């Protein structure tokens, strides 16, 4: 899926064209196209916005406007693990700030940023809808709940260990 290391020079535009073609039969296809592009590349590179604009004949400025309006779209590549920190009401009451601080502490990535080793990107989200398990986070689509500083630390260490093992 998302490969954050892909740089703009290496983008295979034929993939973009295919995604655009697939959705363009539908009305109002811009958002589904951008969603699939982001699923494929991990983000929406600026060069791709122009390509989609050419493909479906919509001004690039309009597509850029859509990308920046919706919180889901990213113009920058992601770290290998995307951590969404829930800041819903229940999580707020049960210590979302504490979770955010701990994550910043153990990953080296503050909310909205990617860690230097490109391993973690941390995002602030409004609500993951797992309020009874507050505080909670989502790591690459998997939700983790009832968090404590220790459990966060442990989860992050496990990820680092796994990465270190696969690297060498």
């Amino acid at each position: 899926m998302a490969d954050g290391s892909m740089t703009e020079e290496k983008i295979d535009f034929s993939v973009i064209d295919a995604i655009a073609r697939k959705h363009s039969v539908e009305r109002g296809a811009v958002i589904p196209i951008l969603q699939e592009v982001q699923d494929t590349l991990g983000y929406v590179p600026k060069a791709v916005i122009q390509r989609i604009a050419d493909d479906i004949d919509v001004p690039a400025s309009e597509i850029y406007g859509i990308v920046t309006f919706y919180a889901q779209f990213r113009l920058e590549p992601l770290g290998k693990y995307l951590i969404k920190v829930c800041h819903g009401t229940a999580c707020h009451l049960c210590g979302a700030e504490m979770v955010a601080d701990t994550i910043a502490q153990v990953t080296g990535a503050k909310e909205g940023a990617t860690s230097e080793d490109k391993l973690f990107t941390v995002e602030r989200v409004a609500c993951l809808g797992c309020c009874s398990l507050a505080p909670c986070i989502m790591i690459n689509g998997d939700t983790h709940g009832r968090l404590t500083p220790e459990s966060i630390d442990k989860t992050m260490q496990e990820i680092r260990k796994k990465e270190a093992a696969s690297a060498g």
Partner: protein
Amino acid sequence: MSLAKEEKWTIKIGLASCGIAAGARKVYDAFKTQLKDKGLNVEIKQTGCMGMCYNEALIEVISPQNESTFYSKVTPDKVERIINEHIARSTPVTEWIIPQKELKSLMAKQKRVVLRNCGIIDPESLEDYLAADGYKALEKVLNSMSPQEVIDEITTSGLRGRGGAGFPTGIKWGFARKAEGEPKYIVCNADEGDPGAFMDRSVLESDPHTVIEGMLIAGYAVGASEGYFYIRAEYPLAIKRLEIALAKAMEKGFIGENIKGSGFSFSIKIRQGAGAFVCGEETALLMSIEGKRGMPRVRPPFPANSGLWEKPTTINNVETLANVAWIILNGASAFNSYGTEKSKGTKVFALAGKVAHGGLIEVPMGITLKEVVFDVGGGTSSGLEFKAIQIGGPSGGVIPASMADTQVDYESVTKTGAIMGSGGLIVMDESSCMVDITKFFLNFTQEESCGKCTFCRIGTLRMLETLKRIANGEGKEEDIELLEELAHTVKRASLCGLGQTAPNPVLTTIKYFRDEYEEHIRDHKCRAKKCQALITYEVISEKCPGCGVCAKYCPTKAISGERKKPFVIDQEKCIRCGLCMNVCRLDAISVQ
């Protein structure tokens, strides 16, 4: 052979997002592996949300005699004993089961209409849904009711929109039926954006066909031929289960051309929301489906006359549609026998926050908040005193414990200054600060304001700044009046529901907790010990064994000391995040 069949056990495992987050998938796998060679007659079944989220991971063991036992907080290492003792020898592992008394008190005041199948059927199985009278309402409608009769039945039932505003559903359908233009659309609003709300997610993850059936009946009633589910991208499991359900319903001819030979044709598509709270507003939602920036527009024209691509469009919330099939099968009078004079039926709530039995609940309209918090919710989780309840998310308000006799219906809740909203209920105890929670909601609405209306865009920001000032102990005497004035202006001068309701948290907390605001301003004191600028953390030397855990987690390295001797917090460096207090197992950190 038939004997063996009668001896069959069933294990149901709640695999909605909450359950999976609590490790239910691993429990499911453990049962699968460990039962493989046991020679026991056990069916392992996935279901959706059983509603008791505080017990996740949750399983239900059903004996051949149909006796049901619930196990709470199940982990893979508990699986072996459950199999060996409960299933092999019919002796339940009593220390892990949820006592009957607790189950009874949880369910005594609930009535399940919308959630009737949740936690019972497999959401990915059409057969399960059919066995639970699924698509019978659709067949009844197609075979024996005219569209107008369907609208009349829904109107008589008294069903009102469950997304928050509470507009009568039957009347809404009537408008769209009379509107001119083809094709007509039905849109299901599943852009559940309120932080603290998870009703729609749970319903779609647990019983997607109910919502699809509701949409098909709506389509038949208004004469629509196309439907859209607009669902948050943050809900990947709900999207997946909805996709599976749509594919299966299509395969069996419940969706598509000439449904069951009736001449009625209907197609359904899914559109994923891209993370904009304002898209829960209906005109913004339509903009988003059309592929534009989701910004609300002036009404009229109302979507019923000019909606998606300027065609007549009916927009219903997930819970609203989930009521429809039940009403058609059981009759309008069965539905309106629940509730109050003007608010009929039931309401689903996501009960969370500082409550003992948090989860997904469904109660008849007219129940009091007190009954919800204490009888269904089991009181506060902390044991601290119940202080207030937040209803309606960022558009709603805070109702104090002293008004817990307020009935849950559209009119009574609105009278308090809050709104019913879509179903978020957050319980707050003594440790919750009213200035802090208001700041939290304003921070949310300010970020989510689309920017179209000046008063919403700038007004929410000015309110947020003022709240931050108060929370920082820099508030001025006149700030409370300033907040009230801003709040009323933003309400009046905003185009859509977001701006019109964003000030509600400010107004209700000032109305009911004015003394707490004054305390922050005059005495620089936060009684809940939440506002960071007004508190200090200290190590209690007598209790501190010098383990150093707090120092390890301190993000600013403000804690230092020698091992086995009491540690000290450097107040200059301390950012008052409270991490040290959270990690200390000996309660050796105090906050003042």
